[in-house]
């Protein structure tokens, strides 16, 4: 893949290695950060208002499922629960997340709603908070309410940390996260322009890594990474000739998926994933009171999570526009089994896109990807039909 400069020169690592390492071992990274004296707060999804956590002097760290066997979580969640919720619970019950100071549960789907209760009743971290978002985003009262729940969350953080959170702290955090979001979007744009500049699996580790790495250092890291990408350090010649695709779903924590796809002659040029563009889509306005500005980003974003209601066709419109903007001829729905919000949207999105000449296929995963051969055959067939 890319030259292993760290071992060859012995002086520095590729910037990308930091992202990859964090993505491979988030718990290890979290442990070290905690040992350095920084409190760490686990975040359940891209609706966790990370700016507030960061402004309170803590490190917001996204929680993922697990590749390990599910042993303890089965005693709390039935077999028909998605692997993300199960995996997160398993990680906490087995003590793999003991470095956390606590976690925040943004209200999204029915599963996370109950996971929050189960977590609250079965763990004893210092900090715990629900951020009960509105389910609809298209009213003034929903926006005002969102500001109110951030106000409450801010108070939660203040009483836990013992320090008050000033407007200046918040603005500083907003600027950092805006820079992170801008740069991730920029990397996506570079890649949409030239899919050969970076492989899909490495790109996925860049986004995942960004949800784990120290945010104070992250803007610099992303800047250096962009330079390295521009230099062609990670070039994967051939990708520019592959069929351009979009992947949509909740989360994809399977870098192999992107490799298999590229071996099957397709390449993802943009995504609508909770572990992708939904993490960095749109920035927070400066010059507006900070909590309101953060609230506006969540409420007004054009590509909401399907557990939120913006309009009856918001997601269809957004995906069709995405496909057009990035010249993608197909959308792969990468869905976790037992994930209701996405499962409900799939039939309509399929129809909506197909009538606009965008082909659609579905890959459903439980905990692991389907066997490689099987997945490859499916993807190849889909791609060759485009």
């Amino acid at each position, binding site marked *: 893949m890319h030259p292993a400069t760290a071992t060859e020169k012995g002086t520095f690592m590729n910037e990308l290695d930091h992202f990859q390492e964090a993505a491979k071992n988030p718990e290890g990274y979290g442990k070290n950060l905690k040992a350095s004296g920084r409190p760490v707060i686990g975040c359940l999804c891209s609706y966790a208002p990370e700016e507030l956590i960061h402004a309170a002097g803590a490190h917001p760290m996204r929680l993922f499922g697990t590749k390990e066997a599910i042993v303890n979580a089965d*005693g*709390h*969640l*039935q077999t*028909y*629960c998605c692997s993300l919720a199960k995996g997160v619970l398993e990680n906490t019950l087995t003590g793999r997340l003991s470095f956390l100071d606590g976690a925040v549960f943004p*209200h*999204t*789907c*029915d*599963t996370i*709603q*109950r*996971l*929050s*209760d*189960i977590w*609250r*009743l*079965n763990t004893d971290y210092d900090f715990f908070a*629900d951020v*009960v*978002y*509105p*389910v*609809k985003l298209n*009213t003034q*009262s*929903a926006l*005002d*309410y969102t500001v*109110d*729940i951030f*106000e*409450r969350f801010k108070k939660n953080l203040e009483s836990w940390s013992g320090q008050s959170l000033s407007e200046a702290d918040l603005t500083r955090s907003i600027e950092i996260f805006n820079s992170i979001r801008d740069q991730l979007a920029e990397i996506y744009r570079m890649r949409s322009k030239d899919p050969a500049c970076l492989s899909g699996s490495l790109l996925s580790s860049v986004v995942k890594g960004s949800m784990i790495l120290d945010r104070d250092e992250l803007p610099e890291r992303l800047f250096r990474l962009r330079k390295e990408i521009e230099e062609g350090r990670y070039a994967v010649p051939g990708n520019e000739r592959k069929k351009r695709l979009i992947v949509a779903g909740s989360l994809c924590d399977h870098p192999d998926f992107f490799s298999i796809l590229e071996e099957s002659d397709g390449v993802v040029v943009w995504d609508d994933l909770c572990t992708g563009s939904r993490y960095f889509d749109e920035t927070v306005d400066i010059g507006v009171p900070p909590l309101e500005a953060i609230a506006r980003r969540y409420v007004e974003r054009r590509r909401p999570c*399907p*557990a939120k*209601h913006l309009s*009856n*066709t918001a997601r269809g419109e957004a995906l069709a526009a995405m496909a057009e903007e990035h010249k993608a001829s197909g959308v792969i729905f990468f869905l976790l*089994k*037992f994930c*209701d*919000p996405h*499962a*409900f*949207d*799939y*039939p*309509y999105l*399929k129809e909506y896109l197909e009538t606009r000449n965008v082909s659609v296929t579905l890959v*459903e995963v439980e905990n692991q990807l389907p066997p490689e051969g099987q997945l490859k055959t499916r993807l190849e067939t889909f791609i060759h039909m485009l």
Partner: protein
Amino acid sequence: MSQTVSKTPPPIAMDEKMKEIMTNYYIEAKTASDSGKRVAWITSGGPVEPLIAMDIIPVYPENHGAMIGASKMGGSLCEQAEAMGYSGDICSYARADIASAVTCGGPIGGLPRPDMLIACNNICGTVIKWYEVLARYYDAPLFIFDTPMCHTDYPEESKRYVQRQVHEYVSFLEQVTGRKLDQDKMEEVGRLSLEAQRLWQAVLDTATARPSPMTAFDGFYHLALIVTLRGTRVAVDYYRDLLAEMEDRVAKGIGAVPNERYRLMWDNLPIWYRLKWLSKKFAAHDAALVADTYNTAWCRSLRYIDENDFLGSMAEGYTRMYLNIGVDQMADTIIEMAEKYSVDGLVMHSNRSCKPYSFGQYDIQRMVRERLDIPCLIIESHMIDERSFSEAQTETRIDAFMELVEEKNQCKER
């Protein structure tokens, strides 16, 4: 005790009345366009009173779902939804309803076309997605009544937000119908709704008697009006008569289960296509299901609503619904009920259709065991998709569970 004669109790006289009312209700709904009335589809826990006050006919896809299930048509409708691309893992009410909308299938040939849709997420987030599907299909305006989850409390900001939506809701209805809400009528409907809820709770309370005059299975049947017609005089009159009948049974010592020896509690939605089978199965063990969390869900808000200011207080009542509270509060509710109805065991329906009702059951089970020391059984199914039900397995598990209940009781008696 030894003198009790084992004989089947007479059928509940009000059963027939219920059939008649529901038939009329559906005829009225299906002919709404002839009578110039508008139809709103609304979720079971949705704030229906303003609709009634505005003479809009409320129709409940979930009640329709229950009918589909009871007529064992759920499996085939769900299958049709799956052919349309809907996952077999989502709520079977939603699957069956969507298929029935498209194919006019089901026991009554589908529901009347909606003029508007009202989705309230105080039961689940599923209804939001489901009603979006309906809104696209029927091209009907959708109002979402958003009731933030009360994990541990009902905070001020939720109060403000939901209260504002009460006004938004009324404006929405006024806009769609082009008519003003009559405040006096609204308050009258509110009073009738509360009265029906009080009566329904009183009916369920008669099951505290030994032997219990009714079981939860009877409740699942008589529940239909508190869901579909609360806010009307019909529901009030009906439950008043039903209450009288139950009180009469208590006075005469008529039990729903002949030789009632064990008293059980049910959690979650009914398994609609197996009501009779389950009811017989438990009765064969001399066990009566005297309490449950589903039938009572429609009276829970009573304590929060002010009879003299319905619109001003319904926000809290509708937000603090049983499914919209934390798992620990749900456990408290179950324990409280188990004590009130003196139950000997808990039967939990782990309902693959309903994640917000089912996730957390294992923890609830643990809390119940710690505090009450009663056996607990878990049965897994999809409430109206009969393809998911394993009779042999369920039967074995019920038998084993009843053995435990019997053993525990013998210990108690000793």
